């Protein structure tokens, strides 16, 4: 309520929902690692990931690749997409190729 002639007005902003996430364990080497390539559905996300994979291939003896496109750039990947690729790969790279 107002005190004297002053006005009390309210903050219209919302507080962000923050969830603490731990960092994934970093491997000592990519030699032998199966690499996941998670594209975000933007036009150049797959070419960008393929280019990154090619660079990594020159530096490490990779164990293979699994490419997935999450299919919608504006939403998080579906849990089943993440669960599926997590079972198949040792590391994963994601990219926004707009």
């Amino acid at each position, binding site marked *: *309520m107002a005190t004297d002639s*002053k*006005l009390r*007005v309210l*903050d*219209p902003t919302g507080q*962000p929902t923050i969830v603490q996430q731990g960092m994934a364990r970093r491997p000592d080497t990519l030699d032998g690692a199966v690499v996941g390539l998670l594209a975000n559905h933007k036009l150049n996300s797959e070419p960008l990931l393929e280019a990154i994979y090619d660079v990594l291939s020159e530096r490490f003896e990779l164990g293979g690749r699994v490419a997935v496109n999450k299919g*919608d750039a*504006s*939403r998080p990947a579906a849990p089943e997409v993440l669960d599926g690729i997590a079972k198949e790969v040792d590391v994963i790279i994601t990219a926004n190729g707009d």
Partner: protein
Amino acid sequence: MTEMPFTSDAIEVDDALQAIELYAERGWTDGLPIVPPTEGLVAQFVEALNVSPDAVLGVEPTKGAVITAEKAAINAVMAGCKPEYMPVLAAAIDAITDSEFGLHGISVSTMGSAVLLIVNGPIASDLGMNSGVSVFGPGNRANASIGRAIRLIIINVLGTRAGELDKATIGHPGKYAWCIAENEELSPWEPAHVTRGQSEGSSAVTVVPGLGPFQVGQHHDDNPERILDAFIDAMFAMGPLMKDALIVLCPEHIEHFRTAGWAKAQVGQYLHENASRSVAEWEFAGRPVAGNDPDGTELVSALVSPESLITVVAGGGGGAWSQIIPTWTHGRAARVVTKPVTV
């Protein structure tokens, strides 16, 4: 009156003008002056919903931002709403936070879409909403302030400000306010919300992730086919295979459909069939059909199906000006959503 248990920080100011300046300085507006949301006013707006201030009206699915009755009420006061608008605003919040609507994407995208609200049912006339002359223009308090309240909620509660999270390349004038009522009185057909599954006699809000509207004039013909033919070039400019698109037919056009005895569904059927061109023509126009041979001769429509066209009647009696409004990503990542108004 018992004081309402608000959780928002309260700020003491000398007067309304100081509040207006303070809110502008803090980036809490759309650039226009706001009505200072005093505790007393906000309490009236929450009471209009008959809920507690911490009642959740919607949760934005991607970021998890919670829109409480308190935050909705604060932003509604700021937008210039009246307390009796709150049920419409609550239904609109329910609709924009539906995961189908894709609120985060449409609000931040370079493609720059805005939220168009279409209000149907008795609540629209109860609130004195405009469905007639200059329906998309200024002058009606409910249309203007309900549309503005949704934008202020997106700015303040979701934190989606232009230049920060909102990266629209050229933006959209509907991001100030974009809210109409359907002109049910002049329509020969069932209202849009009934076509979309709501019960007859109910009130509802339909939210559209709308891109820039295209105004189509056709003053020279009075048969529905020729009127709709005038939309086809506009639809070719929008691109192939739209899952959702809105056509807003004005009363003068509608009268010709009524005279000819057209059913509502025929509008979508006609445009689905006739707004078609070959894959090669789409390619030449810079609107490629994904996954097809660019030289292909098969016909592809601007609409995925006849039902992809959502038909609404609105506007004033003079002039034969209607509109077609495409939607963000052509409905691939955000759909039109309708929710009931609970009074």
